[in-house]
Structure formats: C-alpha cells, structure tokens
C-alpha cells in the first residue's frame, strides 16, 4: 500500500486546483448570477481546505459565513441590482435559457469589458496592460518566493501559547488567544462589526428583501432547522473552552439561522425591533469593554483577567459576543434600519 502515502498530497492538489479554477471562473464568467453561484461553491471548498489545514475553528466559521451569509448577501444584492436580467432569464425552454446565460444583455449585465475606453490609443492600452501584467507577475513571484523561503518547520508562537494556557481560563489555545491573550483584537473586531451595521443602516432605510410570501416548504425546513441551529450555537459556545468552537463560530451559526428565518417570512415582533434589538446588538462590545476596563480597578492591565476568575469572565463575554455577532450578521443581511 505504498502508493497510498501520496494520497493526501493528491487530495490537496485537487482541492487547490479546484479553488483556483472556481475563483477564476467566478471572477471572469460573463453572467453575474453564475459568478455569485461559483463564489458560494468556492466558500464551501474553502471550508474543506480549512479542515485539511487542521484549522477546525476556521472551518466552523467559514461554512456558515463565507459560504452561507456572504452568499445570501450577494444574491440579495444581485436580485436588487438586476431585476430586468432575472426576468429575461425566464426563457420559454430551459435549454434555450442555458444557451442564453452567457450573453444576456441585461440592464446591468457585465457586457464587454473589452470595448471599454475604445478611443484610447491602442499603444497606450497595450503598454498599460504590459506594465500591469509585469507588476502582477512580479507580485505573484515574490509572494510565492516568500512563502517558499518561510517554509521551514517552525512552531511560531505555539510554545508561548501552551506555556501560558493554564493562566488563560480555557483549555483550547485558539479560544485563549481570541478571548484572553489578544482580547483587544477581538474587542475591536466586534466593534468593527457594529460599525459596519451602522454604516449599512445609515445607507438604506428599507429592507433588502421584498415582502413576497415565503415558500411553504422553506418555512417548514426553517421551523425544523432554526431550533437546531440555536442548540448548535449554544453547544459551540460551551465547547469552545476545551475544543474548537467559541463565540465567532456560534455567532455565525446564529446569524445564518437569522438569515434562514428571514427568508422564510419571519419578522421580528414590532415591540422587539426598537431598543431591545439595539441592546442585543451592542451587548457584546459593552460587556467586553466593561469587563476589560473593570479589571483595571483590580490592579490588572487592560483586558488582563485575574487567573482565578478568567474562566467565568471569558464565558460571560463569549455569551454576550455570540448574541451580538448573530444579531449583527442577521441585521446586515436584512439591510434597512428597522
């Protein structure tokens, strides 16, 4: 069975080639809907790659976020951008529609990148293309070279993290880095999420989606899945202390559950759309910042929890952050300010 030893490498080569091909097609296919569909497939394959790289934490976030929420966001935006094209696709026969997909001249269809700036001198354009090609090639070459040269076995910061793991209050190194050793990254990151939502809310007051009646089958599925997803999110928060999981993964699953519920016609009750929603959205940053500042009163540095109750502090922060991340992601998808 000696030939089997090459199998993992073969799998990774296939995965890498698939990723490159999907990305290239998503960025070059003339039809925007096709591009978005390919990008969603790209996210799913990327999830597999994270598992191959022993990055289960990242895989758990990539599948609901990179493939799920991003895909839903792109499709919702696309359906608003090109209603004309979506209608034009409903051709009388399916085979015909397939043939048409390539060059449907819809309202915003991406036709003819080539005939852009026709009147510029051909020499100038050729020169521009050559310079850009050269620069990109140089960038690819140096990026590849750097990767190659860095490629000696190195444990990076694994040793330091493992040494200090007992003081962190959790047993899983990635959670320890996120919530304790580099807590300020995570705090600022949740703040960035909140800022993005404020930006989206200030740009649009109406929701992304029309009020079409939901499909009954989809409604049935989301009645089945939503409670399960909430259960999975709770499990992920809890398991994050000693295994892959934690606030981000759990929040991603919650956000995906929110997207699914919204698609199947569920609305936030009118009473909850005002300050209760805003309270949940801000809870993560508020609790994180409060605990991070409160420890200063105990003589610790900013965000330096005393070892004795680090475990409890992290759990409280993670619960608040999970709720906020889930609510923010779902609100980002819904779009307009409620």
């Amino acid at each position, binding site marked *: 069975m000696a030939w089997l030893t090459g199998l993992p490498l073969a799998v990774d080569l296939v995965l890498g080639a698939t990723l490159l091909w999907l990305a290239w097609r998503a960025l070059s296919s003339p039809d925007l809907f096709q591009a978005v569909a390919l990008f969603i497939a790209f996210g799913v394959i990327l999830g597999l790659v994270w598992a191959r790289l022993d990055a289960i934490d990242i895989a758990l976030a990539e599948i609901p976020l990179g493939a799920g929420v991003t895909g839903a966001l792109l499709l919702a935006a696309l359906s608003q951008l090109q209603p004309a094209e979506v209608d034009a*696709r*409903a*051709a*009388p026969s*399916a085979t015909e529609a397939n043939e048409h997909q390539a060059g449907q001249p819809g309202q915003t269809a991406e036709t003819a990148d080539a005939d852009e700036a026709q009147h510029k001198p051909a020499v100038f354009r050729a020169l521009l293309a050559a310079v850009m090609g050269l620069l990109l090639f140089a960038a690819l070459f140096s990026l590849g070279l750097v990767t190659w040269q860095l490629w000696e076995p190195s444990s990076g910061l694994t040793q330091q993290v493992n040494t200090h793991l007992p003081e962190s209050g959790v047993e899983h190194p990635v959670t320890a880095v996120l919530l304790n050793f580099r807590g300020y990254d995570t705090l600022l990151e949740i703040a960035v999420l909140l800022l993005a939502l404020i930006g989206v809310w200030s740009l649009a007051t109406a929701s992304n989606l029309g009020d079409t009646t939901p*499909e009954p*089958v*989809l409604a049935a*599925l989301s009645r089945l*899945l939503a409670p399960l997803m909430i259960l999975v999110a709770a499990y992920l928060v809890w398991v994050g202390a000693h295994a892959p999981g934690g606030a981000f993964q759990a929040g991603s699953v919650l956000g995906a559950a929110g997207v699914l519920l919204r698609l199947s016609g569920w609305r936030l009750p009118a009473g909850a759309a005002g300050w209760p929603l805003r309270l949940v959205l801000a809870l993560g940053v508020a609790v994180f910042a409060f605990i991070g500042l409160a420890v200063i009163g105990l003589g610790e540095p900013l965000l330096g929890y005393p070892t004795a109750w680090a475990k409890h502090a992290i759990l409280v922060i993670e619960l608040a952050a999970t709720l906020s991340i889930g609510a923010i992601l779902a609100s980002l998808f819904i779009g307009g300010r409620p």
Partner: protein
Amino acid sequence: MLASLSVVLLLAGAAFFLGGSVGMLRFPDVYTRLHALTKADNLGLGLVVLGLMLQAESLAAVGKLFVIWLLLLAASATASQLVASWAQENGFAPWRG
C-alpha cells in the same frame, strides 16, 4: 473485516457522487439534473456516512453522523423543491425526448 467493509461502503458512496455529478452536467434540463443530483447524492452520502460510522470511535460519533445525514436529506429535498418550483413558475418546460 470491519475496515474493509467500511472502505467498500465509502467507495460505493463515491461512485454515487460521481454518477450524480455526471448527471448534473450531462442531463438536458433543470428537472432531470435535480433528479440526478438529489437521488445520487442522498444515497451517496448515506453510504459514506454508513462507512464512517463503522470507523467511529464512540456511539456519540455514530449518532452525530446519522444526524448529519438526516439534516442533509431535509436540506437537499427543500433546496431541490425550491429550484424546481422556481423553474416551473418561470416557464421552464420539462424536457421531452
């Protein structure tokens, strides 16, 4: 013995996935493609899950694998129903010979 049975099931599952993918690429219209995709993938994943169950370390892992299969059945049935009903509403006629 158990290991070789597991390998046989995994390979059989992979064969169904391959068949479903070929069907999706080669069949003439959206309905037959959905048929190929969901039939072959549901059964293919069932076989893969069964093969992995034989290698599972604990009963809990067996249960998780089974739940994964059930969830995928529900999700793929819903997704294919959504695609098919959208196609029907928008006038994609089924392929006839």
